[in-house]
């Protein structure tokens, strides 16, 4: 039935002049043709399509047959596969490129990862053929194609482990390889355009304006494509180095993207250092921010500095401090998100940039650059609230590394800044420990500096020896900070001779007693009294076994958590009391040490401290 209809309409159209086919003709052809293919009459359709007399019809309407043809081709085991393939290829050569393009792009769209992967694998080659037929007018069509392809690619799940990349269950690796192959000739064309443009520039001739426009458009589309891939999938996948994964389609793809960037005339240093270079506005199709999206540049910097892709072409003359400064922009972008892949990349890039710099060499004026303050803030977030343990650990490691690279003055300023802004007891405690190490270093013979001894040290110490809420400070919440402060004070009192007073602690001591030690004593006593009372109450409650209606209840995932048993409560209270004992013991020790030292020096002076 359908076959007859098809033959009829084709024959009728043979008689008509080109392009005067009615819309009814189009419809009949389309419906009948599709049905024929679906019903298995492909051999007959093939002969119709190949018939010399029908070429005008085919050129005009043939592309409508694409959907059922592609269905058959995707099925792979259809018995009419060869015929359908022959029809398909003929259409690719005969029909109008624009119509073919639209038809093919429609067939890329799926929701299902398998279908997407298979369609891409099948259709990228035909798409390439069609685009090449467009000649000099291909740029915008290429852009449209690349955009659609990347949209589909974005729907494929990314591998989480190197085994997953090897297995490539969702074919992301294969699709990327297909995509690279697809883009190849266009990148090559851009490369050749560039070199001939260079030659023309060198011989002071100007190319035809139209040509230049088309070449620029091609370059722009390819640049847009590269930037998009850098954002996805490359930013979200882990790239494995050759020794871990010798054959990595994703790493190969990344390298190819870098190559394409070179083909369109972008220099890698120019891109990586882009945030710091004041580039002139490039007149063209894209705004600066769209042309060089920050996420993409950050991914690029990571590929270059951590994975050493394109290492052969990246100049080895840039100063490590300059590289660090540029990379801080990228690191800031990467660390300001919460996705594991981005944080991982941010930490790696930061580490690699720091390692190239000598210890104690970074000057304090770097701290006037915004990113040198925002990145540590981001790091603190990673160290304290990131759910992944190895990221927290790595974050801390990189944090300490960054401190080690600062010179003495910069360390001083940095510690001041962190104490002022971090508002996390653990971080403050860590900084205070660093301060202690710096003081220790400064007290070594020959190492004296003006920052961690004498006049400048005192303001810093004042920040350390303080309680946020005076005697009412929650000692359990601020435990890390309080303990490190006490440790530091004990260290100073032991290490610094009262007669030398290099750190100034002895002249400051009476103030420290007033603003820190005495309130702390009071706080410890108050807290202890409170918790002891709580403990007693809890024990009595337990004895009486009264059910208490608590004011609060906690639920997680919709399930209410059981109330803490009396046993656990008692344990927790004991633990708190133990903490207070610990604080007190260090306090007492310090007081003892002070008395002893003072006693040796100031016979007859009134006692300094009584609890």
């Amino acid at each position: 039935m359908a076959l007859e209809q098809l033959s009829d309409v084709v024959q009728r159209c043979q008689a008509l002049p080109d392009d005067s086919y009615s819309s009814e003709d189009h419809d009949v052809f389309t419906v009948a043709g599709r049905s024929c293919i679906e019903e298995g009459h492909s051999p007959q359709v093939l002969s119709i399509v190949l018939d010399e007399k029908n070429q005008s019809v085919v050129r005009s309407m043939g592309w409508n047959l694409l959907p059922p043809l592609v269905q058959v081709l995707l099925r792979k085991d259809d018995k009419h596969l060869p015929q359908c393939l022959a029809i398909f290829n003929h259409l690719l050569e005969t029909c109008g490129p624009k119509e073919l393009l639209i038809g093919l792009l429609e067939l890329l769209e799926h929701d299902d990862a398998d279908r997407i992967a298979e369609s891409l694998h099948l259709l990228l080659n035909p798409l390439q053929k069609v685009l090449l037929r467009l000649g000099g007018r291909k740029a915008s069509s290429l852009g449209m194609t690349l955009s659609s392809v990347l949209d589909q690619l974005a729907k494929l799940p990314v591998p989480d482990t190197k085994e997953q990349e090897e297995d490539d269950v969702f074919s992301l690796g294969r699709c990327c390889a297909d995509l690279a192959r697809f883009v190849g000739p266009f990148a090559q064309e851009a490369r050749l355009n560039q070199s001939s443009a260079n030659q023309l520039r060198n011989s002071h001739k100007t190319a035809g304006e139209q040509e230049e426009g088309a070449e620029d458009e091609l370059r722009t589309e390819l640049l847009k494509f590269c930037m998009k891939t850098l954002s996805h999938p490359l930013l979200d996948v882990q790239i494995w180095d050759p020794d871990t994964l010798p054959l990595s389609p994703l790493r190969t793809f990344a390298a190819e993207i870098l190559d394409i960037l070179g083909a369109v005339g972008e220099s890698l240093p120019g891109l990586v250092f882009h945030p710091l270079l004041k580039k002139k506005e490039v007149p063209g199709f894209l705004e600066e921010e769209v042309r060089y999206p920050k996420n993409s540049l950050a991914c690029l910097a990571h590929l270059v500095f951590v994975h050493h892709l394109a290492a052969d072409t990246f100049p080895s003359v840039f100063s490590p401090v300059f590289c660090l400064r540029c990379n801080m922009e990228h690191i800031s972008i990467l660390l300001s998100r919460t996705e594991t892949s981005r944080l991982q990349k941010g930490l790696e890039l930061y580490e690699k940039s720091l390692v190239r710099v000598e210890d104690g060499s970074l000057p304090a004026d770097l701290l006037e650059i915004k990113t040198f303050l925002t990145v540590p803030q981001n790091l603190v977030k990673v160290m304290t609230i990131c759910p992944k343990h190895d990221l927290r650990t790595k974050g801390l490691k990189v944090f300490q590394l960054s401190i080690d690279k600062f010179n003495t003055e910069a360390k001083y300023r940095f510690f001041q800044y962190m104490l002022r802004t971090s508002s996390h007891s653990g971080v403050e405690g860590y900084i205070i420990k660093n301060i202690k190490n710096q003081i220790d270093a400064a007290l070594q013979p020959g190492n004296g500096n003006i920052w961690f001894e004498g006049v400048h040290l005192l303001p810093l110490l004042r920040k350390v020896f303080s309680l946020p809420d005076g005697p009412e400070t929650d000692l359990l919440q601020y435990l890390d900070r309080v303990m490190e402060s006490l440790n530091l004070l004990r260290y100073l009192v032991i290490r610094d001779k009262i007669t030398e007073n290099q750190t100034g602690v002895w002249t400051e001591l009476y103030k420290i007693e007033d603003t820190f030690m005495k309130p702390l004593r009071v706080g410890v006593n108050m807290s202890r009294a409170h918790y002891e009372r709580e403990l007693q109450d809890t024990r009595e409650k337990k004895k009486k076994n009264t059910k208490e209606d608590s004011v609060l209840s906690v639920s997680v995932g919709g399930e209410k958590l059981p109330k803490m048993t009396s046993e656990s409560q008692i344990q927790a209270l004991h633990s708190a009391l133990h903490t207070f004992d610990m604080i007190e013991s260090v306090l007492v020790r310090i007081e003892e040490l002070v008395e002893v030292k003072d006693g040796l020096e100031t016979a007859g002076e009134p006692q300094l401290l009584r609890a």
Partner: protein
Amino acid sequence: MAEPAREWSDEQLKSDDLPKKDVIKFLQDNAAHSFLNEHKLLGNIKNVAKTAKKEQLVIAYNQLFQSKRFKGTDPVEDVTEQVKAVKVEEKPKEVKAEVVDEGPPKYTKAVLKKGDKTNFPKKGDTVSCWYTGSLEDGTVFDTNIPAAAKKKKQTKPLSFKVGMGKVIRGWDEALLTMSKGETARLEIEPEWAYGKKGVPDSKIPPNAKLIFEVELVSVD
């Protein structure tokens, strides 16, 4: 100014009954500024009391009467009698890093081809160069000159702002001495190259002396 009277005998001074603070107060009231400075007796009495030993104070007291360096005997005594305690600001003042003259430059330059001797780059100018970098043993670790001369038309020389710390110091310093068109051979000590660290994961090892052949193509 009449000489102040000796209030205490040696025995009284050494006695535990006499608090340090009293001695210090006397000294601060009566001794010249320079004397107090030398004996570390300036500042808040309480502080001085903590850092000074009784024996030191006794010695100082006696020395004061021996040397007669009382107030008013300093050549320029226009300092205030009460030296205030050192005021420490919250933010330490900018301590500008002094430009330390580190000695001789840590690179050498041999001119292979003369430049125009007129166009010398200044700090902040954009320069473009062709270059080849190698280690002392001859290993080439970097170059932007493509292998085939024909391909040179397709690639561009390296451009950057000179004298701004964007490149290793040897380059920054050397290029400022080159004129347009000059080709030079630079031998750069590690201190002005990549130093103790070298460049990890690359051909440049720690403490490497680097040799560059550089052609300064243009200056903007």
